[in-house]
């Protein structure tokens, strides 16, 4: 019977969509696509215009921010409306030690210190916030985190002697002592001489390499023990508790990890822009991150990357066409996505596949439905 079923599906699996179906469902094809994508990322900056490189660099920065938000929101089902706070704090944590010590004896060591601080301090803040905020059931996290950017901006202005307030901090031209003894101006993230790369290419490689590593870490996180626990907490907290998975602690862990990713995005932000200000952690940007996460695809690694693309390109697009309408367009886009494509752009291939298999009545329809219900649990 089952043999008969498979053969009958095989014979029906013809035509263009059948081909798409079989090709996208094949895991080897997925590996090839992934490797081709990484190779493209590696080679593109050597031939592309500086503006393209800078745009892709920024996409990588915000893809990491969206990835962090996705861990708490997409995978654990807890809405955070203040994720930009961790990005902004991470950016300050990265830039302040670099500004203070890069020109001195520490030199490149200051960048390492900045990187470590950009991970640790947002992580600790995230932990403290989560300990209190996830105690209330349901939407308390959303209601508490919405305050973070709204408190963060005046806080950054208050400590303007280290944060630079509205004007911000720039490390584009820092003093340093050259080997000949003269004091020169330099940018910590300009390409080292003799390497044969322009500044935009150098920054691109730093940001993209770190982003790819973070994406790989997140991939293994959500497929592993933690990811499965997050999925159960998202699905039903009572069930999770009855299985010995504490919803409270897993929400705290998830929020903390998400904050660390936010901090990492803050560091990458500094590599890409060498500048930050209190404006970087404003409420509007936080909402844009949420929108990018949903439009890209909640609970999806590929969706996080697409979210980064949306975050950077959507405002660029609307700014080019009709700048006054940027905010309104974002609102329309998110509502349309929620109505028409709740899984975000990342679910597009799956939706197409399901449409076609439903039309043919193939057996994949049920499997796809199961995957929709429990994206974190069902292995695809």
């Amino acid at each position: 019977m089952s043999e008969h079923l498979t053969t009958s599906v095989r014979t029906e699996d013809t035509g263009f969509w059948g081909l798409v179906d079989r090709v996208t469902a094949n895991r080897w094809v997925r590996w090839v696509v992934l490797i081709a994508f990484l190779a493209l990322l590696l080679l593109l900056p050597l031939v592309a215009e500086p503006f393209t490189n800078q745009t892709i660099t920024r996409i990588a920065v915000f893809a990491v921010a969206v990835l962090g938000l996705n861990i708490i929101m997409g995978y654990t089902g807890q809405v955070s409306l203040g994720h930009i706070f961790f990005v902004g704090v991470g950016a300050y944590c990265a830039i302040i030690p670099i500004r203070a010590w890069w020109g001195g004896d520490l030199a490149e060591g200051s960048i390492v210190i900045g990187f470590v601080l950009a991970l640790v301090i947002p992580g600790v803040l995230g932990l403290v916030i989560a300990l209190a905020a996830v105690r209330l059931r349901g939407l308390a996290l959303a209601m508490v985190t919405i305050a973070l950017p709204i408190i963060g901006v005046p806080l950054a202005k208050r400590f303007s002697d280290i944060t630079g307030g509205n004007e911000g901090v720039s490390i584009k031209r820092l003093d340093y002592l050259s080997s000949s003894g003269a004091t020169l101006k330099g940018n910590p993230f300009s390409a080292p001489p003799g390497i044969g790369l322009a500044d935009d290419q150098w920054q691109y490689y730093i940001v993209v390499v770190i982003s790819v590593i973070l994406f790989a870490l997140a991939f293994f996180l959500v497929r592993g023990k933690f990811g499965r626990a997050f999925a159960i907490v998202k699905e039903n907290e009572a069930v999770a508790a009855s299985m010995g998975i504490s919803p409270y602690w897993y929400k705290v862990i998830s929020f903390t990890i998400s904050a660390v990713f936010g901090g990492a995005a803050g560091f990458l932000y500094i590599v890409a822009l060498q500048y930050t200000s209190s404006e970087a952690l404003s409420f509007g940007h936080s909402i844009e991150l949420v929108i990018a996460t949903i439009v890209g695809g909640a609970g999806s690694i590929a969706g996080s990357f697409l979210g980064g693309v949306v975050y950077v390109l959507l405002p660029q697009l609307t700014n080019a066409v009709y700048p006054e309408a940027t905010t309104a367009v974002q609102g329309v886009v998110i509502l349309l996505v929620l109505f028409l494509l709740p899984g975000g752009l990342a679910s597009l291939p799956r939706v197409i596949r399901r449409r076609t298999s439903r039309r043919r009545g193939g057996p994949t329809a049920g499997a796809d439905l199961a995957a929709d219900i429990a994206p974190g649990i069902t292995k695809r």
Partner: protein
Amino acid sequence: MFNFTTFIQLIIDGLATGSIYAALALAIVLVNQATGIINFAQGGMAVLSAYFGMTIGNLMLPIHPILGIVVGIIAAAIISYGMGAIIERFVMRRFIGSHPDTQVVATVGLLTLITGAAGLIWTYNYIPYPFFFDAGESFRIGNVAISVWSLTTFLTILALMGVLQALFRGTKMGLGLRAVADNSASAALSGINVGRMLMAGWGLAAVLGAIAGILVAAKIQLQPGMFDTFLVYALAAVIIGGLDSPIGAVVAAWGIAILENLAGTYVPWIGHDMKIAVPFVLLFVILLLRPQGLFGRKVVVRV
């Protein structure tokens, strides 16, 4: 250096600002009890209604200033009721029963859309809102100068709460609203039109927000994002007071506003710019000690 008259003024101003938070918090609780949704667009809807009220009122201003203001307020109230009902029916109805984070994101999307639309039509500049009196006007009782705005705001919101209470307790519609909030399935079985009740609930919440919006606009002028901060305070009040307790939310709103006024004045480090952090420090302490909020009930969930 303790000045008693300053102290009294701080309390009165706190009560007035607190009333705004309370109105918004009450609107949020109202919607939440009926639909289980936290409406992050509540402030945005209020601002949009105030813009409509201003625009319509301004048409009447040449005839008589008072007429213009009154027409503006009435127009804002009617439009906000319609807006709330339409948003419920055509946007939020679809998200009833979906995952809470989808609901949150939907209302956040609404907030973005509404803010963007207001900015598109009326720009992002501050626009003065014509009102019965000047924002700075005050009168004296003994040594204490009482701001007319503060007194009006406090009394208006208090009166609105009284009207709402009467509506909920004393009318058939209120009974229906309470039935839907309590158990919408049973309400539907006993012949209540749940859909219409949900629309009415959203509409009433929007009216409450719109009146608060006009009062704020009369003081600090009208701007698309002007209610974002108020929304944050209102949410803090809702959490502290407990999502299922309207009285708790109102008391918490007043408490927050008075506390932040006092802290902003008497604790030099906090000052005017950092006083928004005060309710959240308070919130943290409360969440750690009493996760269900000060007045909320513990909820037992069935698996």
